């Protein structure tokens, strides 16, 4: 086991973990406000394809990123309209949004399959520029990767240290009580979904514009659903989500390491770890009172009549 291969594993874990963490944070915000978004997968796809398309056309990755982020927000508003305004079932609406994303992203991305882009720049970790190229290239990350941990902290601060976050969590626990104390549950849920959508957009932007630098149909490969699992795994907490995302992407990267040292574990089986781990965690909590899902999660808020 060389230092180089260890670094390689770490680096690829951080790369794939970044997009995972962004979308998980987005899902955390939505679920804290009481809304399960099963459509994340579709949102990611549409954001990734439109961000990539804009990057190709405009030749500017930052513009592409901006579009991806905004598209994420707008896509989540579709879900918001259905589940908040029209009081439709959240699971069904999310799945419909997922199918919508499959289709729309295929349409948007179609002309740009195989296109080359100027990706977000990679910046070497400060102080490491003097290392040999082989090492420094493994340790150079794009701006979105440097921002992901601060974003998680920011989301934590927003949810747990601001009045708005308090209101949001109150809505997630009991929208009627939140309404009685002068908050507007519908508005807050829209805001939560929009913010969550922006974060999904960042996740998608990282995936298509910075990490893989390509567009393919279904390229998100289930990240939207992994995010749902990670939200539960991290008990709806943004900081624990950092650990979850790293553990998860680390497991995938770890497999490369095992392979290089001659141990064969199917990558398919390693991919199941986060889901199984989440189920096990749920079973362990199930016996106790520790389960901290927002109480109104998945329920329709009918408003006060």
């Amino acid at each position, binding site marked *: 086991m060389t230092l180089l291969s260890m670094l390689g594993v770490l680096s690829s874990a951080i790369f794939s973990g970044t997009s995972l963490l962004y979308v998980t944070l987005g899902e955390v915000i939505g679920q804290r406000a009481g809304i399960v978004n*099963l459509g994340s997968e579709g949102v990611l796809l549409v954001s990734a394809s439109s961000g990539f398309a804009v990057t190709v056309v405009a030749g500017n990755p930052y513009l592409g990123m901006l579009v991806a982020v905004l598209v994420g927000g707008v896509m989540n508003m*579709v879900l918001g*309209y*259905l589940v908040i305004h*029209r*009081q*439709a*079932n959240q*699971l*069904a*609406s999310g*799945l*419909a*949004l*997922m*199918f*919508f994303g*499959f*289709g*729309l*992203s*295929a*349409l948007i991305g*179609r002309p740009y399959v195989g296109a080359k882009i100027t990706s977000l720049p990679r910046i070497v970790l400060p102080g490491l520029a003097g290392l040999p190229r082989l090492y420094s290239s493994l340790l150079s990350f794009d701006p979105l990767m440097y921002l992901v941990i601060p974003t998680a902290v920011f989301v934590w601060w927003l949810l747990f240290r601001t009045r708005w976050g308090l209101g949001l969590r109150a809505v997630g626990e009991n929208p009627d009580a939140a309404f009685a104390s002068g908050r507007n549950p519908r508005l807050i849920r829209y805001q939560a979904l929009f913010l969550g959508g922006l974060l999904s957009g960042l996740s998608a932007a990282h995936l298509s514009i910075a990490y893989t630098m390509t567009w393919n*149909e279904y390229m998100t490969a*289930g990240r939207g*659903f*992994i995010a*749902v*699992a990670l939200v*539960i795994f991290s008990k709806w907490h943004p900081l624990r989500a950092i650990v979850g995302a790293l553990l998860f992407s680390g497991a995938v990267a770890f497999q490369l390491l095992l392979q290089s040292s001659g141990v064969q574990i*199917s990558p*398919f*089986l390693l*991919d*199941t770890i986060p*889901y*199984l781990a*989440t*189920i096990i965690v*749920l*079973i362990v909590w*199930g*016996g106790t009172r520790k389960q901290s899902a927002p109480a109104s999660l*998945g329920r*329709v808020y009918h408003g006060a009549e």
Partner: protein
Amino acid sequence: MSQTADRNHRSTPVLQRMTNALARYSLVILLALTLFGAILLISGKDPVQSYKDIITHTLGSAYGFSEVVVAMIPTLITALAVAVPSRVGLINVGGEGQLYIGAAFATWGALTFPNQPAWVLLPLMILLGMLGGALWALVPGYLKAVGLVNETITTLLLNSVAPKIIGFLIFGFWHSPMDTVKTSNFVPAARLPTFFGTRINLGFVFALALLMAFWLLMKNTRWGLEMRAIWGNPEAAKRNGIPVRTYWITLMCVGGAIAGLAGMVQVSGFYGVLLLNFSMGLGFMGFLVCWLAGGNPAGILLLSFVVAIITTGGNLLQLTRGLPYAVINILLAFTLFVVLARPTFSLKGRNA
């Protein structure tokens, strides 16, 4: 989810009910077609011509119609896999995973006993498929029954696990000498028979039989009545001596077995081979269809038909309009959105 809708329906006369439903569904479809037409127009395709093509090639010819029926089969079966557990208040979002595991079990049968005659092999594969699906649903059912974890979460998470197990099996053991993403073609004895020179396979008969059985079970048996009681109030049902836990576990497994059958039907009747990621959301579509139909058998039949016309139309757009197949999902989604949003012309009072 379903009973509320039923209750509303019962209070109105049959004729009014039917015209209401008819008006509602036509408007839904019109709205969805307009929205998708706009998208086609933006991407430079003629929407009117595209729709004309879709209609003539699905409903306009015998072969086209048979293809619609083919596309209906998995949706119909997976919708029932959701409908059965929903009758005791269980939300089975796990049809996708159960379908995959059912397909894997059935494939094991096909690959292990290729020399058996069809009358031995096919029933065996059906049993294996149902067993696989049931086992996959047993975990969520059990965890729900003992009060540990909500079945919605577990079924959802297990969906993502199942296709990876298929990948493991295909990649590691079952792949054909030529290709790493699928098994060798099944022997003819492992293929469900098809009818009238079309691709409609025996699975369609299974689907209709299950639909019928579901309807009769709910309507005419003591089980149906007890299930209704559990749906209404599990605690009260328990006090009245109804074995609620047994019902929960059993019906979850029955749902899983039905989804597993859908997997068997797809690999044996449709593909004739086990492909990596072959489902691409069939189980989720079943969930949506069942949910939108309020668990009602006739509604499930009708909605599966509509969904099948749309998905069959996707092939056509791909062939004649040069659009990716996935684009048809937009029309599908618009239809679902419009139904979910229940615009003002809809019957009111259905609780989500």
